[in-house]
């Protein structure tokens, strides 16, 4: 790659490996992610996508949106398939049979269902075994491909079709599973949390993840207009508010070193993020306050960990 570091949008490569004409929804964040990932890693990449929106919308025969080698096997096994591909590249290279003089990146592009729930075992196995690959979880916080059912990554109190708002339930009763922390618990060399609202930061993380020897995990938020109930033009705006409210903190853990890559000097209140989305429409003031309290605690933990106020206090406009 010619550019060593991405500092601004103009540094991002112009070549496209994710073609137009795919069938993802208007305003879909997964398309933005797929485009950026393939752009950053260039043609020498093999992409594994488990079953999900991205898969079904980009590979319907006789069309494919992929201009890089791409494979889909099943829902729960993207990390296992990637393990096999990585092992094959290693063996074939060493034996002088194929892939001789070039570095080929292996990337899994999965949703949160395929990562947090059904694919967690395969992911854990692959991270523990230390394969040289990048696993990117595009977290839209529910099973969107089957029509908005809860996943382990669905946040507290969010409405989905299986966490409906009724007389007894007020959306999801549990908090979101912290996947990046789970990945980090494997002591892999690189873990990052990213957002499409910060494409340069995200691109740098993709690049770093690929270049680091060994497994790397990136958790990127994927605000879904269809499932989160917001207008398709607001995808990036919702993502940005996730960052600005401190609900989605952008950080990386490089060889055990934790670093917040996008500091937020002054936080916006969580309602700015929540009230943009239909899935939180039912929230009362008290419930919003409850979520705010939870976010404050999380922010506090991060600030403590880095030793200074990297994510600032809430500024009420």
């Amino acid at each position, binding site marked *: 790659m010619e550019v060593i570091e991405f500092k601004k*949008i*103009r540094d*991002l490569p*112009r070549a*496209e490996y*994710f*073609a*137009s*004409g*795919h*069938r*993802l929804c*208007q*305003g*879909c*964040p997964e*398309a*933005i992610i797929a*485009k*950026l990932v393939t752009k950053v890693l260039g043609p020498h990449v093999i992409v594994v996508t488990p079953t999900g929106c991205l898969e079904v919308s*980009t*590979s319907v*025969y*006789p*069309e*494919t*949106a*992929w*201009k*890089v080698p791409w494979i889909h096997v099943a829902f729960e096994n993207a990390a296992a398939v990637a393990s096999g591909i990585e092992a094959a590249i290693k063996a074939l290279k060493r034996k002088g049979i194929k892939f001789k003089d070039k570095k080929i990146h292996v990337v899994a592009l999965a949703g949160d269902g395929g990562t947090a729930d059904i694919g967690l075992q395969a992911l854990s196995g692959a991270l523990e075994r230390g394969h040289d690959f990048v696993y990117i979880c595009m977290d839209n916080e529910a099973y969107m491909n089957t029509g908005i059912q809860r996943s382990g990554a669905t946040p507290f109190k969010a409405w989905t079709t299986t966490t409906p708002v009724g007389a007894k339930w007020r959306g999801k009763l549990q908090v979101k599973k912290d996947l990046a922390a789970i990945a980090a618990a494997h002591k892999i060399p690189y873990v990052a949390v990213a957002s*499409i609202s910060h*494409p340069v930061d995200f691109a740098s993380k993709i690049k770093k993840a690929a270049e680091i020897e060994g497994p790397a995990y990136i958790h990127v938020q994927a605000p879904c*207009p269809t499932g989160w109930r917001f*207008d*398709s*033009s*607001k*995808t*990036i*705006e919702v993502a940005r508010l996730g960052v600005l409210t401190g609900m989605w903190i952008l950080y990386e853990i490089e060889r055990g070193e934790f670093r917040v890559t996008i500091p937020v000097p002054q936080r916006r209140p969580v309602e700015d993020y929540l009230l943009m989305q239909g899935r939180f429409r039912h929230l009362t003031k008290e419930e919003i306050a409850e979520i705010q309290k939870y976010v404050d605690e999380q922010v506090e933990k991060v600030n403590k960990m880095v030793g200074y106020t990297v994510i600032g206090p809430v500024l009420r406009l």
Partner: protein
Amino acid sequence: MTELKKWYELPIGCSNMEPGSSLNNITAGWRVFMPEIDKNKCTKCRLCWIFCPEGAMELDEEGFTKVNYTYCKGCGICANECPSKAITMKRMEV
């Protein structure tokens, strides 16, 4: 409508040998609103180019973005994100 292929005309093993063939799928019909770029306001920041989910924002020789209306689905992200308000969404004329 092209004729559907027979079984022996399909690629082996559920593969697709034509990378990027989704270009055959014109998605223009998906949109209700269409973006229009005011070159006078455009600062060539490329945000719309990087954010467009369709890859429908192309860069011209001068570095301006231009919309590829064959694939633009009219999501409106470009207009929403443009820092200099150079993009407006217009109702499609039917």
